[in-house]
């Protein structure tokens, strides 16, 4: 699929898709969207890149090591944020009850830990989607690496 038009267009579009994905992740607590939707958008940009150039170039951009680190890291990040709730004297995943400042509604840094949670989810979802795409397209061994 070595087409100049597709390559130039995707080169142009990919940064904007990623920016939009990041926007959806970061504004997950203020507008519809959040970690899963944003992560899927970011992943789709990487998949578009891999499809329009070639798969190897795509997988070089985000190696298997990095993506599996991000996959585990995203989940562990979520659990750590959850445990902080217990550390601050409330329950698992506690937000307001753990004394986290909620900020002014409508501002970017409001909603306490939700922002950080969607960040973790976004990283996890994006890397999982990318791993899934490459393992399905490349025929790489993928015995149950999704959750």
């Amino acid at each position: 699929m070595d087409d100049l038009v597709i390559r130039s267009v995707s080169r142009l579009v990919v940064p904007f898709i990623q920016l939009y994905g990041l926007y959806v992740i970061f504004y997950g607590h203020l507008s519809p969207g959040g970690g899963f939707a944003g992560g899927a958008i970011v992943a789709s940009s990487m998949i578009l890149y891999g499809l329009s150039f070639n798969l190897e170039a795509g997988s070089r951009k985000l190696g298997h090591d990095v993506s599996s680190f991000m996959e585990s890291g995203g989940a562990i990040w979520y659990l750590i944020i959850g445990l902080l709730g217990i550390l601050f004297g409330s329950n698992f995943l506690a937000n307001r009850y753990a004394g986290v400042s909620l900020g002014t509604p409508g501002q970017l840094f409001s909603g306490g830990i939700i922002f950080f949670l969607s960040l973790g989810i976004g990283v996890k979802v994006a890397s999982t989607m990318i791993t899934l795409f490459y393992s399905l397209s490349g025929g790489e061994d993928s015995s149950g690496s999704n959750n």
Partner: protein
Amino acid sequence: MEVITKLLNNYYYFAAMILFVIGFHTMLTHSNLIKKIIGMNIMDTSIFLFFVSIGYVRGGRAPIIQEGAGYLYVNPLPSALILTGIVVAVSVTAYALSLIVKLYAHYGTMDADEIAIIRAREER
């Protein structure tokens, strides 16, 4: 007549149920594994449609509260739950597809009946 009015008033539930039956039927009767997965997705989607339509309020907006605006808001809980449901459905689909890829590499077919025939021949 009363039944028809009821159906027309709740057409989204009706549509969801029809989709559910289509998906269920596809999943159980087709021997092609890819079609089975498509059926599974139709079934899941119908349940999501059903669930989301429970929380829908006619004319409602996304429930981001704005002071003093006086809008009508939809129930956010079903949508939030369905997002989780979609994640689950995506991972089941991806896992099933990767299994089918492997199965195709081993048997050279994606048809459950043909695989059963190959296996029966092997065991004899």
